[in-house]
């Protein structure tokens, strides 16, 4: 790490000492798969959890679990408060002026579907355009395909450049007639950081609502919806130190207020008669049934943890790791790295090694205790575009170290030896 020589950035990033302290909070880092220390380089798929998050949920179940909202007794009041407090924490974390703008869903995927169903079905008609990009995760692609099929709408795609950035030269033409522009803030395959503020502004000028897939952004960088000026944004708890089973759809209040319910049942109603019902205000309107209460508590603890570090520092540290990784991996023969240069990307790095298939590489690394993802990363069409069947992806987070990058480099060298590649 070049920290020592860059004093200005020290306070803005994590020191080895900080990282050591962080690592001590993650019990799983003590595991030894195949007898090797765990080197977890798959946080883009799902991050690990600090004890603070695990214990917050544990504590919830041991001390104050009860169904929320309709309970008058003490522990139900505590549970209700904790659930709503988690919503407020999330809202503050993403710069939302109003907690009611944060809907708890299962994961980002459900959040994106919610928009496609509840907003999309209301506004998208025959011949309308839905604009996406060529780097979307299946979760920000398939829901729009289905909407387009149902409504005979047209899908368009912002193309990507050779180095994996959005090619915005024809954006205005593509946006013409668009009702929706859905795009990712950060590519989960290429690591590309997209210019969200610009994209949202241009969507608005064209009369389209902007839907931001912030799955890879919220865990890794300061995100502020007020600054981004987008309309909807979805992300998952499990990628940002929080539990599985919960995610967030954020939406501008006026838009959410105008939308019909999607999933219906207990908790989202106002008056129910046998034949018809009226519905509660947001956010309750979009949270049918007993919600993921313990998970909200866990997500709140994850937000606290990240805020305790500071998202600027999280982002800068990951950037440093990305720089080191690009330098070291880029120096290896027969290694191809996809995506843009360091100034446009975050710590998600996809690569291929000679003719070694990604699965074979991942299997070999696994034996060294190194966890990477191999495959299409829910980006099948992008893989076609890149002309590879699959890539191996290493992704870094606050608990990773430069030493782990060295282990990755050695692992790749070993794979080359086994596959008899120079």
């Amino acid at each position: 790490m070049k920290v020592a020589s860059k004093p200005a950035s020290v306070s803005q990033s994590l020191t080895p000492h900080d990282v050591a302290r962080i690592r001590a909070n993650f019990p799983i880092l003590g595991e030894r798969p195949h007898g090797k220390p765990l080197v977890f380089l798959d946080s883009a798929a799902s991050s690990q959890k600090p004890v603070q998050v695990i214990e917050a949920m544990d504590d919830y179940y041991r001390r104050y679990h009860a169904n929320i909202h309709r309970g008058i007794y003490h522990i139900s009041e505590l549970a209700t408060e904790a659930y709503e407090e988690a919503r407020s924490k999330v809202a503050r974390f993403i710069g939302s002026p109003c907690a009611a703008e944060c809907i708890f869903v299962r994961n980002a995927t459900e959040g994106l579907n919610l928009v496609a169903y509840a907003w999309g079905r209301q506004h998208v008609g025959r011949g309308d355009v839905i604009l996406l990009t060529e780097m979307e995760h299946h979760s920000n692609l398939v829901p729009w395909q289905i909407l387009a099929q149902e409504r005979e709408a047209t899908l368009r795609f912002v193309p990507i450049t050779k180095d994996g950035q959005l090619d915005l030269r024809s954006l205005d033409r593509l946006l013409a007639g668009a009702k929706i522009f859905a795009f990712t803030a950060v590519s989960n395959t290429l690591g590309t950081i997209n210019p969200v503020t610009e994209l949202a502004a241009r969507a608005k000028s064209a009369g389209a609502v902007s839907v931001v897939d912030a799955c890879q952004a919220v865990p890794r960088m300061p995100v502020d919806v007020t600054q981004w000026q987008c309309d909807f944004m979805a992300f998952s708890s499990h990628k940002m130190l929080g539990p599985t089973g919960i995610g967030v759809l954020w939406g501008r209040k006026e838009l959410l207020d105008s939308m019909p319910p999607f999933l219906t049942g207990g908790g989202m109603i106002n008056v129910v008669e046998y034949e018809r019902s009226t519905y509660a205000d947001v956010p309750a309107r979009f949270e049918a049934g007993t919600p993921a209460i313990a998970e909200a508590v866990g997500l709140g603890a994850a937000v606290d943890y990240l805020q305790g570090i500071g998202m600027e520092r999280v982002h800068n540290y990951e950037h440093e790791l990305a720089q080191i990784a690009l330098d070291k991996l880029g120096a290896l023969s027969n290694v191809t790295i996809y995506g843009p240069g360091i100034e446009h990307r975050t710590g998600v790095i996809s690569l291929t090694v000679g003719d070694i298939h990604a699965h074979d590489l991942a299997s070999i690394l696994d034996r060294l205790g190194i966890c990477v993802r191999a495959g299409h990363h829910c980006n099948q069409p992008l893989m076609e575009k890149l002309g590879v069947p699959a890539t191996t992806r290493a992704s870094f987070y606050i608990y990773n170290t430069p030493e782990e990058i060295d282990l990755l480099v050695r692992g790749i060298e070993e794979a080359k030896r086994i596959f008899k590649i120079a």
Partner: protein
Amino acid sequence: MQDDFSGMEELYRDFILDHYRNPRNAGTLEGADATYEDNNPLCGDRIRMDLKLRDGVIEDIKFKGRGCAISQASASLLTEVVKGKTVAEAARIGKEDVLENLGIQISAARLKCALLGLKVLKEALSLAAPDL
């Protein structure tokens, strides 16, 4: 560090790499009696097989695919095994046979890779000889 990989050198033995890099019966067949293609959606491995039968015997077989060394070598090996066999014989080939032919230990996560070729072969056979 080499000893770390005993399992890996075992898995990626020379003949596996050879089948991966020089797949036997690679390509497609003009006028095949049956063609079947499948993929493993979770990892993207893909294999297509073309069969030509004569008098209940697999006269020719070709495969085309992409994916990991395990899936491609396994398919390649399989084409060698079944070529010239009767449909009935080929239909009796099971998972165990495939794994035995590969002669290596496969972890749970990679089992689907090793068996994709067999799955495609079975489907192609049932297209070619539906009464079987």
